[in-house]
């Protein structure tokens, strides 16, 4: 089965059912599927080939959803890039995977970004622009309007030769080397994990799912992929910054499922939720970072009868663990058990499996173990290692866990220094690389410090030439070169960094 089959089968079952609600637009399964077919036909006409990689650089929108399926229907693999990503990183990612096409909006074109992208990415042959009218006639050798495609191309489903071992998508994640890495997800991986999550969430066609998370974030992306698979309705918001609006959406659309992260729940808990009719809610999920037990208790009190799922996952396997909601009051600190159809265990450094209450690295086995990192065999070999059967690979998470006597798992810490802030993973190296590019910076160390709202906040400690470097200059430099969540919240300039005898910086001594 291919990822787009979920949408296509739901379309056959219920063509006139509302598949997607976004802003004031409501699309049926037939309309959404047709929109994706037209885009696929256009991409093929413009030379896109099976296995090509196509970027979607759009904010959450109907066009972004249609693009995901349009790319798949053309036999290509998509990757969604957060619309807040800066030019440098966007261009890096396009070059990294040799993208042949980019789907973005007219505002990007208006800023003159398209020619710069084309000149720095010779593989890039087509740019589809959302937000131009068909009569604007933006079509030239490289550009074509999304709306013009919808007017001019047929809605017949193109013939596709893809099989489920072909790539469906790349999901870019922070790499410990400082450059983003594209996790390769084939169709079978995505379909498997979507169905596994659907199984434990007990989703049915009656579910209406609210997604306020960016589609560039795999947790947000899967809300769409899952909903169209089980034939539900997806209510898509462009942001979680406006809680009153999405709470009202829950009431208006009779939402049954809501995917959140700790930051969102922190914003909701001080609010008077009784002003909204949230009686339709059947479940809510939390991922990206752990909810503090006090927040779990408050959510359960404020939303009685709603099932809360604590979950844990990584891009490399998408979802790994979930805590059955009935266990939440018994073991609120646990992130549960392996998702259906998979298994996990804990290993020590010698590769021996550990029993209850021993701390070691979590290892994951199942069809959700992705295909590795795009063009990065070294990192792939580190994280995806041989499993119990010949030729099989399992995923070493790099996260330390312990298991209780009943087999429930508890996150302990990262094995490496990756910082988890705002639900985003940040490699200290990526921030340090940028700091080192600043004239006058001699040494830089970046680490995560506990923060009640962010999970962890980024702290940078520098040794620097004081005649060239001031805190304000450092922050301005970071803001110019890093995505917002990577900019240090705390900054110290010091005379010396603590080091080990071998000269490695002792990050833990800097907390």
């Amino acid at each position, binding site marked *: 089965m291919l990822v787009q089959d979920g949408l296509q089968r739901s379309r056959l079952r219920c063509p006139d059912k509302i598949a997607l609600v976004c802003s004031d637009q409501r699309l049926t399964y037939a309309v959404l599927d047709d929109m994706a077919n037209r885009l696929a036909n256009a991409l093929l006409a413009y030379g896109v080939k099976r296995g090509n990689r196509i970027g979607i650089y759009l904010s959450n929108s109907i066009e972004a959803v249609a693009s995901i399926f349009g790319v798949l229907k053309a036999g290509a693999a998509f990757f969604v890039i957060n619309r807040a990503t800066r030019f440098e990183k966007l261009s890096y990612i396009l070059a990294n995977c040799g993208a042949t096409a980019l789907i973005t909006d007219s505002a990007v074109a208006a800023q003159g970004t398209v020619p710069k992208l084309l000149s720095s990415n010779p593989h890039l042959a087509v740019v589809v622009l959302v937000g131009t009218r068909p009569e604007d006639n933006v079509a030239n050798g490289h550009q074509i309007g999304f709306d013009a495609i919808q007017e001019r191309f047929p809605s017949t489903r193109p013939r596709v030769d893809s099989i489920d071992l072909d790539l469906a998508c790349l999901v870019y994640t922070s790499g410990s080397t400082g450059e983003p890495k594209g996790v390769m997800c084939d169709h079978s991986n995505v379909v498997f994990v979507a169905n596994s999550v659907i199984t434990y969430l007990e989703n049915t066609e009656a579910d209406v799912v609210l997604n306020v998370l960016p589609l560039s974030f795999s947790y947000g992306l899967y809300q769409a992929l899952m909903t169209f698979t089980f034939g539900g309705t997806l209510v898509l918001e462009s942001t979680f910054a406006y809680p009153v609006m999405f709470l009202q959406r829950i009431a208006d659309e009779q939402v049954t499922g809501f995917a959140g992260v700790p930051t969102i729940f922190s914003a909701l808990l001080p609010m008077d939720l009784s002003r909204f009719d949230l009686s339709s809610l059947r479940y809510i999920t939390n991922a990206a970072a752990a909810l503090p037990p006090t927040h779990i208790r408050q959510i359960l009190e404020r939303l009685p009868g709603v099932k809360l799922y604590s979950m844990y996952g990584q891009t490399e396997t998408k979802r790994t663990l979930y805590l059955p909601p009935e266990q939440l009051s018994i073991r609120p600190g646990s992130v549960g058990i392996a998702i259906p159809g998979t298994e996990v265990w804990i290993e020590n450094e010698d590769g021996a499996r550990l029993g209850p209450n021993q701390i070691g690295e979590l290892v994951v086995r199942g069809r959700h173990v992705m295909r590795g990192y795009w063009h990065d065999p070294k990192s792939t070999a580190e994280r995806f290692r041989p499993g119990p059967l010949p030729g099989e690979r399992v995923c070493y998470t790099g996260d330390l866990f312990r298991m209780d006597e009943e087999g429930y798992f508890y996150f302990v810490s990262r094995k490496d220094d990756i910082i988890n802030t705002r639900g985003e993973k940040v490699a200290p190296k990526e921030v340090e690389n940028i700091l080192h590019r600043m004239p006058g910076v001699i040494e830089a160390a970046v680490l995560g410090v506990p923060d009640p709202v962010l999970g962890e906040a980024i702290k940078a400690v520098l040794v620097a030439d004081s005649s060239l470097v001031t805190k304000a200059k450092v922050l301005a430099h970071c803001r110019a070169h890093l995505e917002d*969540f990577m900019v240090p919240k705390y900054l110290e300039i010091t005379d010396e960094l603590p080091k080990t005898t071998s000269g490695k910086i002792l990050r833990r001594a800097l907390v």
Partner: protein
Amino acid sequence: MELYQQIRSYLVENLLYIDDASQYDNDTSFIGEGLIDSMGVMELVTYVQTRFGVTVEEHEVTPDNFDSVNKLVAFIRGKHAIKIQPKGNHAGSGRVAAQQTTLPG
């Protein structure tokens, strides 16, 4: 400092991660065009409350009030009920500092 400039300075120094802010006008959608993310909007709400001494009610945290410089300025002015004396270009299409307005605090 003028209100528009204060807000744009705050955005550039604290939330916008772009080299050249002049390419964005005061009508540019923060979220729609990826200028700031959801967390950025949340920080903006806190900034407006502390910097301009206004109380932002839960129901006022909407794109109508917080999704562009112009909307933000209109919201803050509405809160302060300040009489405006616009100079120069109209804010709707203006670039940085197109408006000359002052606020207390």
